[in-house]
């Protein structure tokens, strides 16, 4: 049973997330019937599931809310901000109730839940009190979708024959049939056998009847309602022919003859007699005069309809998802990682042995392995939209708290990223958006005075760029104040008073720990921890941050992240007999470094690359290799924190699909290495954390400078 309750919890979280998104959209479009329907359905499903799994408190609360939204759905009650507020609070409360259950706590019905329940009940009572006199005159025919039985499709056989004089009342039977079509999957066959010859026909009379096969989630009353105004002018017969098992399979396999027998159009002995011949059953039956061609047509339509229903069901079933615990996926990815390593060993050995048969097998394994790796990785990919939708609530609540008018716009919600990356991205994004709201976007009056619209905009956009995802957080607020940042950095001793910094380097200073130019500390931000958290978070994701800002116009923070953390594209390099991996994402190019180049720089670690002076770090020095450096080395240039830095290695070997292995607890203090990987021949290569190497070098240089002063 616990397994089922766990399934409910997972479903509840999804439903609550969907509810929150729909409610926030509904607040913007209060008349949108689709959104109202979405809210109602999510609430209804939540109520149903919670009741089924014994979460009675949740069921009670959602029941009260559902009642109110039922009124909204039927157009009797309007949506307003107060209702949305109340519902969002209710969602929070339900979330707490679900989480409390997760933690194994007993959940007494909280006062908040009782209060919310009461508020929804009194809202309904107040409304009913006011609406009663009008409701008495309403006489409204319930809309068909109000009687929808969710996820429970039934198949109906409808026989409809209007009276001959139906046109005289202004009724067009085709419009009624179109309404039936709107209820679901529908096959309609006209019965024309009563149409007389031209000498007898009354051109303004209706001689046509219809046989309709309908598969719908609506109940029989919804169908009857369509014909409610013509019930005195027609013969209507609706039969629910859904198999008791709910299974259409048996029906599909039923032969035409069986359908005709079941419909009472022919008798079973007649059918048996006819089956002795070898012609098609439909032709035989018509030729024999046992049944009219039209009835065969109708039975064929029924057969076709049922077949189609089944096919659609199969498509839906095939497309349906299954829920798999995340750990199982992680294990799968680990195993695929191991396989990638083994496969690369196999490829290496096959090349060394030069055995054509072995090479052939190795190539085949390599091809399959690449597919397996890509497929496995794609399973872990999630659309970033689920994370985006959470921020809508954040923006709404925070802007209200700060008295600002801010709207969040999102782009590229469908962009997919590894599940782990998405999870770890949440905190940095929260901080960035908080900063936009608190520091970036001005108060409405200030904006107006500056000639901007009162409403500020925060844009959250995601897009794929090669093996990376670029996430942009842009606001149209005040922009960063370069002077204030500079002053603060000098005050804190982060930069020298005479330091010359580019705009990019200046803005990068706000990523330093404890750096905040906010004059006041609010509950939202200003403590100078936010951007530090962002930097740490993004570093941990092997990502980069770029800040672009224009005073008075706004700022953009651009995060570049790898699609996955399990396998990355790396550049394999060698120093002496040791191998290292540099994440390809940060790398710009590789150029040679000769003794002549070194001589030209007069002992300074700089090189001129494409007309630009690039400082470099010699990794053999950073890792204290004792041997002689080769006459020709390689500089791998990278872009780190907005600046260009080169790393000098003995040899660049080439691109390498790197399965990341963690270094374990023993090495947790080694910051300059982010992990390790195993090469094809079993050698271990360390994965370099390039920004950390630069930081360490800068620290050592600063210490050196200070020591030389004394």
């Amino acid at each position: 049973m616990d397994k089922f309750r766990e399934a409910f919890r997972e479903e509840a979280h999804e439903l609550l997330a969907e509810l929150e998104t729909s409610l926030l959209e509904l607040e913007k479009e209060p008349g949108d019937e689709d959104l109202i329907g979405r809210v109602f359905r999510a609430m209804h499903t939540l109520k149903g599931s919670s009741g089924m799994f014994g979460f009675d408190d949740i069921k009670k609360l959602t029941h009260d809310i559902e009642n109110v939204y039922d009124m909204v759905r039927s157009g009797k009650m309007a949506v307003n901000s107060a209702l949305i507020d109340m519902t969002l609070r209710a969602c929070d409360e339900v979330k707490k109730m679900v989480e409390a259950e997760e933690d194994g706590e007993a959940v007494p019905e909280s006062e908040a839940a009782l209060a919310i329940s009461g508020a929804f009940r009194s809202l309904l009572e107040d409304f009913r009190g006011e609406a009663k006199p009008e409701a008495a005159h309403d006489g409204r025919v319930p809309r068909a979708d109000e009687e929808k039985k969710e996820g429970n499709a039934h198949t109906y056989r409808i026989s409809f024959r209007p009276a001959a004089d139906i046109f005289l009342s202004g009724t067009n039977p085709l419009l009624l049939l179109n309404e039936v079509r709107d209820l679901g999957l529908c096959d309609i066959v006209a019965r024309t056998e009563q149409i007389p010859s031209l000498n007898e026909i009354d051109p303004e009379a209706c001689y046509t009847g219809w046989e309709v096969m309908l598969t719908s989630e609506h109940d029989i009353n919804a169908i009857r309602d369509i014909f409610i105004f013509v019930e005195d002018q027609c013969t209507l017969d609706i039969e629910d022919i859904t198999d008791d098992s709910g299974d259409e399979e048996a029906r599909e396999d039923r032969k035409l003859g069986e359908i005709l027998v079941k419909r009472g159009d022919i008798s079973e002995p007649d059918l048996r007699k006819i089956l002795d011949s070898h012609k098609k059953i439909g032709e035989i039956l018509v030729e024999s005069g046992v049944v009219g061609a039209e009835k065969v047509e109708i039975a064929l339509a029924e057969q076709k309809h049922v077949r189609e229903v089944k096919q659609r069901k199969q498509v839906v079933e095939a497309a349906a998802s299954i829920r798999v615990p995340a750990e199982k996926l992680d294990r799968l990815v680990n195993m695929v990682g191991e396989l990638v390593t083994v496969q690369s060993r196999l490829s290496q050995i096959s090349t060394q042995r030069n055995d054509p048969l072995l090479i052939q097998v190795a190539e085949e394994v390599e091809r399959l392995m690449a597919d397996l790796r890509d497929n496995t990785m794609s399973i872990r990919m999630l659309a970033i939209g689920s994370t985006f939708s959470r921020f809508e609530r954040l923006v709404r609540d925070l802007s209200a708290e700060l008295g600002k008018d801010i709207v969040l716009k999102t782009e590229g919600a469908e962009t997919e990223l590894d599940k782990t990356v998405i999870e770890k991205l949440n905190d940095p994004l929260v901080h960035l958006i908080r900063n936009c709201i608190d520091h970036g976007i001005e108060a409405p009056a200030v904006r107006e005075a500056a000639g901007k619209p009162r409403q500020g905009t925060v844009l959250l956009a995601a897009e794929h760029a090669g093996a990376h995802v670029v996430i942009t957080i842009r606001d149209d607020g005040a922009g960063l104040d370069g002077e204030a940042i500079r002053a603060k950095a000098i005050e804190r001793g982060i930069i020298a008073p005479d330091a010359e910094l580019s705009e990019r380097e200046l803005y990068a200073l706000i990523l330093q720990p404890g750096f905040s130019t906010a004059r006041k500390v609010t509950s939202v931000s200003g403590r100078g921890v936010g951007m530090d958290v962002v930097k740490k978070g993004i570093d941990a994701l092997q990502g980069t941050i770029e800040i672009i800002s224009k005073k008075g116009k706004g700022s953009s923070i651009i995060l570049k992240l790898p699609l996955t953390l399990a396998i990355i594209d790396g550049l394999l390099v060698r120093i002496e007999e040791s191998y290292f991996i540099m994440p390809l994402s940060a790398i710009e190019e590789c150029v040679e470094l000769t003794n002549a180049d070194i001589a030209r720089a007069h002992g300074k670690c700089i090189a001129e690359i494409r007309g630009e002076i690039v400082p470099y770090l010699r990794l053999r020095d950073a890792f204290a290799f004792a041997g002689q450096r080769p006459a020709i080395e390689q500089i791998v240039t990278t872009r780190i924190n907005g600046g260009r830095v080169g790393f000098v290695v003995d040899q660049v070997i080439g691109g390498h699909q790197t399965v990341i292995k963690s270094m374990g607890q023993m090495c947790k203090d080694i910051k300059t290495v982010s992990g390790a990987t195993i090469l094809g021949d079993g050698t271990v290569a360390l994965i370099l954390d390039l920004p950390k190497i630069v930081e360490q070098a800068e620290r050592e240089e600063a210490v050196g400078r200070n020591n030389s002063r004394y």
Partner: protein
Amino acid sequence: MFELVEGERGATLTVSGELTIQNASVFRDALREWVEKSDVLHLDLGGVTDADLTCLQLVCSAHRSMMNMKKNLNMASGLPGSIIKTAREAGFVREHGCRGEESNNCVWIIRDEVGK
């Protein structure tokens, strides 16, 4: 709205405009007259801009009347979109004629339309 041309291979009745209940009597009369007079009647409905159930019934009726008289009714230039649309809505489009083998030339067997 109705135009009749008599040729060597039978008469052609060309109909244009709206074939709805408002014109149903006129349409019936035109059909009745020329079904009586012709052994082979080509019915050209290409110019029909709107049709309702009465139109479909009259076409059916004309076809049946001619079959009963062992005459031929042909649709001269296929059915126009307006009639096909109504025929589909009304469930007239079918795979077999209503009188078995002898009616395989049923007006409503519209191969391209079935299954759409």
